[in-house]
C-alpha cells in the first residue's frame, strides 16, 4: 500500500488518458455549436431536435457532433469487423455439410418441421450406433461422433433460419392483441356513453322547476346527487355497474318526483 502511495505514476498508468477530444467540450464551444445548429435548422426548415449532423462545421467543433455513419455499412470494433446487415452464416461457409437441400426448405414451413424431426430422429439413431461401435470397433467411433456433430449443427442452423419467420409471427400476434384491446376499449366507452345518454334523456324528459322557496332542501339535494351519480358513471364504469341494481328503485323514485313536480307545475301555470 505504501509503495503505491510513493509511486503515483503507477496508479495513473492503470487507466489510459481520456480521449483527446474531451477538451473540445467547453461551454463556449457547446453554445457556438447550438447556434450553428439553429442556423442550419432555420436554413433547411427542419426541426432542431431531429438534426443529428451539420455539414461544413468549423474544425474545432467537429467533435461536438456524432461521427457520420459508415458509408459501406462496415466498421471495426476492437479490430473485429462489424457489419450493418447481419447475415446468418451459411452452413457451407462454415464448412459443414448441409443435410437438406435449399429448395427442400424453400417451400412451406411444414417441410422444415419435417426436416427437423428427421434430424432429431437421426441424432438418436446415430447415438445408438455410436454406443454400438464403441463396443465393437472403437476406431470407427470418431466418424460417428463427426456425424452427430454435423447433425447437431444442421439442426441449430435450421432453427436459426426460422428466426425471422418467428419474429414475423410474433409481430402478428402483437398486432392482433393491440387490435383486440382497441376494440374492447371502444366497446367499453360506447357502453358508458349510452348509459350516460339514457340518464340524460331521463333528466331531459322532465322539467326542472324554477327555484322556489317551498321546494324543500332535501328535494334539490336529491336531484343534484342523482345527476352527479350519472355523471360519475360516465367516467367510472365500475361505479356505473354498482348503480345498476339501484335502477329499479331509481325509476320509482323518478316517477314519484315527476308526479310531485307536475302538480307544482300545474300550480305555476
Amino acid at each position, binding site marked *: 500500500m505504501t509503495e503505491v502511495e510513493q509511486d503515483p505514476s503507477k496508479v495513473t498508468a492503470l487507466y489510459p488518458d481520456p480521449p483527446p477530444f474531451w477538451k473540445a467540450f467547453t461551454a463556449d464551444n457547446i453554445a457556438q455549436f447550438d447556434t450553428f445548429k439553429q442556423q442550419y435548422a432555420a436554413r433547411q426548415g427542419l426541426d432542431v431536435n431531429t438534426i443529428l449532423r451539420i455539414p461544413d462545421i468549423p474544425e474545432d467543433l467537429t467533435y461536438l457532433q456524432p461521427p457520420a455513419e459508415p458509408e459501406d455499412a462496415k466498421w471495426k470494433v476492437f479490430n473485429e469487423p462489424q457489419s450493418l446487415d447481419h447475415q446468418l452464416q451459411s452452413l457451407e461457409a462454415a464448412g459443414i455439410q448441409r443435410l437438406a437441400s435449399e429448395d427442400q426448405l424453400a*417451400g*412451406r*414451413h*411444414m417441410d*422444415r*418441421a419435417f426436416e*427437423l*424431426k428427421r434430424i*432429431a430422429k437421426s*441424432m*438418436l439413431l446415430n*447415438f445408438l450406433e*455410436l*454406443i454400438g461401435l*464403441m463396443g465393437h470397433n472403437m476406431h470407427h467411433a470418431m466418424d460417428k461422433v463427426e456425424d452427430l456433430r454435423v447433425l*447437431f449443427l444442421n*439442426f*441449430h442452423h435450421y*432453427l436459426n433460419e*426460422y*428466426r425471422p*419467420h*418467428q419474429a*414475423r*409471427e*410474433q*409481430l*402478428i*400476434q402483437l*398486432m*392482433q392483441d*393491440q*387490435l383486440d384491446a*382497441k*376494440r374492447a*376499449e*371502444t366497446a367499453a*366507452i*360506447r357502453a*358508458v*356513453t349510452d348509459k*350516460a*345518454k339514457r*340518464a*340524460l334523456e331521463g*333528466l*331531459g324528459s322532465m322539467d*326542472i*322547476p*324554477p*327555484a322556489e322557496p317551498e321546494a324543500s332542501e332535501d328535494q*334539490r339535494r336529491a*336531484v*343534484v346527487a342523482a*345527476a*352527479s351519480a*350519472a*355523471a360519475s358513471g*360516465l*367516467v367510472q364504469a365500475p361505479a356505473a355497474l354498482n348503480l345498476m341494481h339501484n335502477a329499479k328503485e331509481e325509476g320509482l323514485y323518478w316517477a314519484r318526483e315527476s308526479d310531485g313536480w307536475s302538480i307544482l307545475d300545474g300550480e305555476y301555470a
Partner: protein
Amino acid sequence: MGDRLTQLQDAVDQLANQFIASFYYIERHHDLETFGPNDKIPDLKPEQMQQQVDTLPAEEFQAGQLELARDLITKEQQIEYLISSLPGLDNSERDQEQSIRDLEEEIGVAEAQRLEAVKEKDEVLAKLDQVLRAIRRH
C-alpha cells in the same frame, strides 16, 4: 422461459448433454469381459480398479441404462412436440406479410372508431356538465 425456438434449442442442447452423460455412465460402470483367449483382465487392487472402472452389479447397471434410455426418448419426444408447435408452420412468408398488412388496416379502422367513441363520450360529458350546472343554479 424463452420463445418456442429458444426452448427447442435448449432441448437439443440438453439432448447432447444427455448423450454425453449416458456415454460416460456406460464407460464408467461397465463390467470387464474377455473377448478372446489372449485377453486378460489385469489383476489390480480394488482401489486401482475403482479409478478406471467402477463396475456396478449387472442389475443396477441395467437399470441405469434403462433409465438413461428412457430419458433420451422422453427428450426426443419433447423435441418433436416442440417442433410441431413452432408458431406459424402453415404460413409462408407471403401469408405473413399479407396478414400484417390486413392487421395494420384493421388497427387503423379500430383506432378511428375509438377516437369517434371518445369524441362522443366527451360530448355527452359536456352535456351532462351543462345539465348539472343548470340544476345547481336553481
